[in-house]
């Protein structure tokens, strides 16, 4: 038990690209935390819609807005990571929602257990109300809680991030799979809390197109190569 001592500072990184309809709700779910973060870093990845204007409506001292040319989610998260000053770091995507006690539960878990590097939680999905009529019958929405191994559900120690490194900016999808595989290969300890900590918005998109994306195969190949190098070196 190490709950005594200074409360850790928590940074939240929220990348956004063209999500004017959803980013406001994502920010509200961060601001409504029962244990509010010490800083919220919004990285606008070159949005061409009104996302930035929505973000700026929430301006406050604890919020920092960084603008960059569109470079992809990995690069946007990295930009936020570089700016983050907290001892603990969380991510939220601009279309998703946190449960109000997400940070409180996860900060509590990390304060209780020094051996833990990453803490996740359970996840449910919801069909975005604005697309419900259009997509209701065509998309599978997971309303049962599942272990959420995603950036959205993570709270990680800065010291762990320093060991794992940044997200691979070349990957268009699968960047979190790659990052998490690196974390595991380092032997970092993670825990999935039984509670639901986040809700993922399902709002369409072309799943088949995403699934055909070859970046996943590249993530797998680089993971296999890394493990083989480690095995040969060891």
């Amino acid at each position, binding site marked *: 038990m190490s709950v005594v001592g200074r409360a850790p500072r928590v940074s939240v990184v929220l990348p956004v690209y*063209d999500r004017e309809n959803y980013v406001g709700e994502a920010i509200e779910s961060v601001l409504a935390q029962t244990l509010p973060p010490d800083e919220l870093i919004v990285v606008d990845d070159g949005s061409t819609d009104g996302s930035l204007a929505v973000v700026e409506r929430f301006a406050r001292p604890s919020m920092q807005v960084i603008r960059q040319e569109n470079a992809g989610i990995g690069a946007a998260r990295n930009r936020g990571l570089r700016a983050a000053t907290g001892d603990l770091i969380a991510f939220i995507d601009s279309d998703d929602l946190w449960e109000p006690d997400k940070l409180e539960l996860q900060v509590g878990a990390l304060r209780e257990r020094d051996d833990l590097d990453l803490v996740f939680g359970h996840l449910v999905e919801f069909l975005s109300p604005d697309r419900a009529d259009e997509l209701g019958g065509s998309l599978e929405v997971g309303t049962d809680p599942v272990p959420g191994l995603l950036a959205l559900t993570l709270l990680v120690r800065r010291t762990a991030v320093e060991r794992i490194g940044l997200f691979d900016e070349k990957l268009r*999808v699968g960047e979190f799979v790659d990052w998490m595989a690196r974390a595991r290969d380092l032997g970092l300890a993670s825990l999935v809390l039984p509670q639901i900590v986040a809700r993922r918005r*399902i709002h369409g998109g072309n799943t088949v197109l995403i699934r055909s994306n070859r970046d*996943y*195969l590249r993530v797998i*190949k680089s993971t*296999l190569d890394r493990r083989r190098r480690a095995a040969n070196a060891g």
Partner: protein
Amino acid sequence: MEVERYCVNEPSVISEVIDGETIVLNFENGHYYSFNPSASEIWRRVCAGSPIAAATEWVASRFAVDPAAIRPEVEGFLRRLEEEQLIRRAAKAVAPAVVTAPADAGGPVAAFSSPDFEKFTDMEELLLLDPIHEVSDSGWPQKSQ
């Protein structure tokens, strides 16, 4: 009934040869595979829609071995791939597959060893969750490349 040909279990299964290694991923269960050289050659022919006989001929020519001698191994390997749900039986009535003699084969690529794969399940829960987010037309596009 004897199976004449298989096809890749699309769209759940994707594959690519990266730096000479055939990597296959099944999104239905998050399992992924690395194929050895003879398995890669068989996979290549399945992807091309070749009947089993033609695939066997191809592999035999790639490794300079007798097709009759390796046919049982090729068939056995295809059954394993089917069990793993990486391939499925293709209807006979499909458009004739392009069955070419291995014109680009050059010489034997390597000494023949039985077709085999390594199977990995360690990233199952990561891979199963990840692909839902869209990146196509309304979010996180990259600059044109």
